[in-house]
């Protein structure tokens, strides 16, 4: 006899084997592990890595001041905060928009590859890294929201105008894809050996 639980509603069953069945409480299919979790999460992470490049290279925001249009990337935005001597906000934006997505991508990739390639990393460490990646996931959205609020408040045609840049779409996709990748990944497979 084996124990198996519904990942959706957490009801525990005692069964003869690990064959899939329908949960009597929530009607979801109960499996020992989430189907193709590693493959799907890895594919999403690779997509996010590719999208991270245009997100960093292309402008996040277009500021028009007295008819002069200035485009700024995420890094240039951080530099402008430093020029205004807003060091705290520069750190917040740099952490949320550059460091956090990078940590998420590297962390997820490291966990996924460690399941196929022998990397000297304990399962507990992998678990801690994953929990951290999951917890910081949504905080990268700060830059997208800042651009949206700025664009909403500063609308004076050619005198003073702020618009979103083309990197906004790629960056939003990076955040969403990494969040789905982390959410879809079944950490229990780390311990299945």
């Amino acid at each position, binding site marked *: 006899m084996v124990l198996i639980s519904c990942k959706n509603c957490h009801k525990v069953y005692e069964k003869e084997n690990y064959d899939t069945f329908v949960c009597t409480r929530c009607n979801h299919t109960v499996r020992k592990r989430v189907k193709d979790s590693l493959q799907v999460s890895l594919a999403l992470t690779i997509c996010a890595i590719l999208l991270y490049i245009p997100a960093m290279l292309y402008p996040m925001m277009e500021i028009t001041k007295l008819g002069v249009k200035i485009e700024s990337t995420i890094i240039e935005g951080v530099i402008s905060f430093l020029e205004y001597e807003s060091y705290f906000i520069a750190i*917040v934006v740099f952490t949320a928009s550059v460091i956090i997505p990078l940590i998420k991508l590297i962390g997820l990739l490291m966990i996924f590859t460690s399941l196929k390639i022998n990397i000297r990393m304990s399962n507990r460490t992998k678990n801690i890294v994953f929990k951290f990646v999951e917890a910081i996931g949504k905080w990268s959205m700060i830059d997208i929201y800042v651009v949206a609020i*700025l664009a909403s*408040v500063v609308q004076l045609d050619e005198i003073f105008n702020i618009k979103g840049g083309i990197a906004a779409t790629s960056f939003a996709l990076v955040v969403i894809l990494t969040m789905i990748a982390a959410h879809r990944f079944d950490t229990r497979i*780390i*311990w299945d050996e």
Partner: protein
Amino acid sequence: METNNIVECYSCGLFLRKADDKSTLISKCPRCNSKVLSEKEHSFDSLFYAISSLLLFALLNIYPLISLSINNTQLNATLIGTVGILFEQNFFFVALIVFFTIILAPILNSLIIILSFIQIHTNIRIFTETLLHDSFHFFKHWGFVEVFVISIIVTYIKLIGMVSSTKFDIGFYVMLGYIFCFYMSNTKFEGKNVFGE
């Protein structure tokens, strides 16, 4: 074997026996040290907080979050305005994400909590228990209102460097109250209660 007093650690897959069926304490998995989910007490506070958060949400849409004045022209940002401007500037995908994460998901999250209480305590049955349970967890996961509040503060600091008349408006303070009620309604709600077991 009695399986009601067994829980699975969803981080490592280890099955653990609950020390006490009625225990609400968070226990830690001996193998991976992760928190093992335990059932919370069913609390009506969650319903009251959900209703309050919906009312505050309606209120914060009336007032601007940030306002400033340039050459006697009053400019301000509202919650709906932030989504609307992205649509106007043809950022449809980003606009949809922003709309979903700061408006739709939080509203539906509160509505699901209210509907769950209605279904549990009356004979009215609008949605299936599974739909309510899944929707609650889905909208809870994809609602980013707290990130949006930090973004308002970052925007304020960015704008004050360019325009000194920038100030937080009533909407921002209402939003702080909304965040509190929203957070409390989620903390005090146990998704599994919708199954009535």
